Each structure stands twice: as structure tokens, then as C-alpha cells.
């Protein structure tokens, strides 16, 4: 069982998509420190990808300190996760942001319009951290 949802899209390398999904799951807290992380073999089998690809991704996750391989136990989410900076989190949204920008430009929108629209959506959808949205507290037109 893969503890995060992943549907492959054509165009972006599988390894990138997997890395992205795994990182997001860990950073967002969907996977907590100490939780078991699928082995290379499991990933390969469940997602039907090349084990080398899975291996590459696990290596990268290990290098970033997000997962660790414990002898006798297997792969687990790292107990002490590096604190993700705001920039890092923004980086995780890279493709979404790029897509947003491209579509917005296609429609001929201006940056301010885009930011307002984002703000409207932000207020409408209930956040995981009500404290941070309360901190912003901006009203939008």
C-alpha cells in the first residue's frame, strides 16, 4: 500500500513526480516521523515503475533527510525532519504555480488579478492552519 496518492501524468519524469508526491506527503504531515515508508520493491510493484527509478527516488529522499533506512526494520520517515522553509514549500508547488501562470497569461490576465483570485480562493477554502490565515487577515475585494 502506498500511503500517498499518485497518478502519473505524461510529460514529466516519473522520478520527479514520485519525488514530488512523496515529499509533499511527508512535508504536509500526511506521513509522520517514524511511519513506515514503502520499500523500493514495494514502490516498484505497486506503482508499476522500474525499480531503478524507485531506487533513485528513495536515495534522493534519504539524501534530503526525509526518510531513513533502518537495518532490520526497513525504510521509515525520518524521525527528525528538516524544517521546511517557506521557500521550500513554495518550491513544492512549482508545477502548479507554473501551470497557473501559463494559463493566466494565455487568458491575458495581469498579476494583480491573479493574486486577487488566489486570495478569494484562499478565504473560501478552510485551511489546515487557521492561525496562519487569521494572521494574514487581509480582506479582499
Amino acid at each position, binding site marked *: 500500500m502506498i500511503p500517498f496518492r499518485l497518478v502519473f501524468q505524461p510529460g514529466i519524469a516519473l522520478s520527479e513526480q514520485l519525488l514530488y508526491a512523496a515529499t509533499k506527503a511527508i512535508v504536509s504531515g500526511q506521513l509522520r516521523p517514524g511511519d513506515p515508508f514503502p520499500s523500493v520493491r514495494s514502490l*516498484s*510493484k*505497486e506503482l*508499476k515503475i*522500474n*525499480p*531503478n527509478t524507485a531506487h533513485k527516488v528513495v536515495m534522493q529522499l534519504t539524501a534530503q533527510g526525509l526518510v531513513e533506512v533502518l537495518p532490520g526494520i526497513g525504510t521509515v520517515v525520518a524521525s527528525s525532519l528538516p524544517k521546511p522553509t517557506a521557500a521550500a514549500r513554495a518550491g513544492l508547488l512549482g508545477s502548479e504555480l507554473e501551470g497557473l501562470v*501559463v494559463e493566466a497569461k494565455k487568458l491575458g490576465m495581469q498579476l494583480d488579478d491573479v493574486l486577487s483570485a488566489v486570495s478569494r480562493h484562499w478565504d473560501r477554502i478552510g485551511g489546515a492552519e487557521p492561525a496562519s490565515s487569521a494572521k494574514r487577515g487581509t480582506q479582499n475585494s
Partner: protein
Amino acid sequence: MSSPIVTHNLSKSFRHTEAVHALSLAVPEGSIYALIGPNGAGKTTTIKLLMNILRASSGSAEILGRDSRRLSPREFARIGYVSENQEMPEWMTVDYFLRYLKPFYPTWDDALAADLVRQFELPGDRKLRHLSRGMRMKASLASSLAYRPELVVLDEPFTGLDALVRDEFTRTLLDRAEGTTILISSHDLAEIENFASHVGYIEEGRLRFTEEMSVLADRFRQVEVTFDAPPPVPANWPADWMKPDTAAAVVRFIDSRFDRERTGAEVRRLFPTARTVDFHAMSLREIFVALAMAGRHAKAA
């Protein structure tokens, strides 16, 4: 690191047709090599030549370091072969079939065999002739993985299998894929796209290209150029760009040698009046269709 499969100008002619022509490829060790191509391109013939089921008209091939014409029991004990083109002893039950094969393979693992049977939910006491097509392929795969072969060769394994069976088949194959080299020929590109590491494209018996999957995926892009007014089609169409599709104010074509900067510059040069340019990555299936169509047009021309 030697390649488990290497061919040198492998050719095979049947009476008046040349099924395979001067094929030279190398399958890297540990890779999952997908052999793709249109129907009748010569994929099955190539695999049969590699397995010494057919004898080459000219050229040679080496399997696990040995001339394919001299494959001995020792090599076959390290090779798993699954093909819809191969018969199985119909009268044997699944259990007996595996029991019968065991002494042929020094590395046979009974526990693994039992595991595979369980995973595939194969009825051990049913005769092979009474199995559905999907079960038969699963049984064939189980009997070819139970001894942990170094090289697994699959010839159109997904033909006629429903989605669930294909899924099971793929999962089990990948479960055992570490440390193994896999050669798989298939029409089912969506299925193999995600796990193939290398691709060889065969058309009319010739190997058109062989490269890493990531490289292939990187160099093909569908380019979409939007205009304000119906665009002119330039006279000198670049060789790497496939035949364009024009509709209203949009021109679409496929670039088979995509490079973000170079292609971008080329587009701007040839379409100075372009409003927007979009590059879309292509799935293996889309790449295959484009290639096959180009091939057909080339033949007709």
C-alpha cells in the same frame, strides 16, 4: 558490465520476405528494455532469433555472453521466457508443471514458486488446457520466475489479457525485477511506459532507434502554435518536425528532437507571427503512433 543481449547485424529472411534486417542492439544489464513497433515489424522474429528458436540468415547474437546458436542448458537455466507463441504441456496440472520443471533449474526456489502461484491465484490442480488465457500467461510467468533468472524475455505477454490480469502480471514481474534484465515486446505501451528504462523501435525489420526511455520522452514534444490569423506554412519544414496539422488559427506538429531553446528559436524564426507557443510532453503511446504514421507516410511516398 556486459550486456546480457547483444546483436550484430542480425538478419532473418523467410522465402521472399526479409523479416529482420541487420539488427544491431544491446540490452544493458539490469535494464527493462521495451521492444516496440507496428504489427509485423519483426519483434517476435527478433526475440525468436535471440532465443535460438529460429536460426538467423546472417549476423549473430550473444545471450549472456554466449553465441545464441550455442545456447546450452546452462544458459537456459538462467533465462526466463514467456510468450503467447509458445505451447505448454496441456495435459499437466499447474502444480505438476512446476514440480516437473524444478529439477531442470539448480536455482529453483520452491517457496518462491508457491508464492507466485498464490499471488496469481492459480488453481494448482487444474490442467493447463483448462486455464483461461490470462491464467495461462500467469502460469507461464510463474514457471519462468521461480528460479530467479538473470534474464527474462517476454514476447507480447499482454495480448488478449484483461486489465486486471495485466496489472497482476506487471506487478509480479516488477516485484522480481531487481538484479534482473528484462526484455519485453509489447503493443500495450501504456502498461510498459512507466517501467521500461530503454526503448527499441523496430519497423519493417529494422531498428530505427534504441535509447533510454527518459531521453526518448525528453526529445519528443507536441508543439502547439497559436496565431491571430490563419498561419502560413513555411516552405522549408525542418526534418525533425513531423507533418504539421493546421486548423483555423492553430498549427500543431511534433518535434522529435526537442530542445527548449533551440526549438523555441526555430519556432519563432519560422512563425514570426505566432501569438503563443506551447510544448506538450507526449506519452509513449502518442510517440509510437506518430512514428508509425510517419513510417506509413514514408512508405506511401
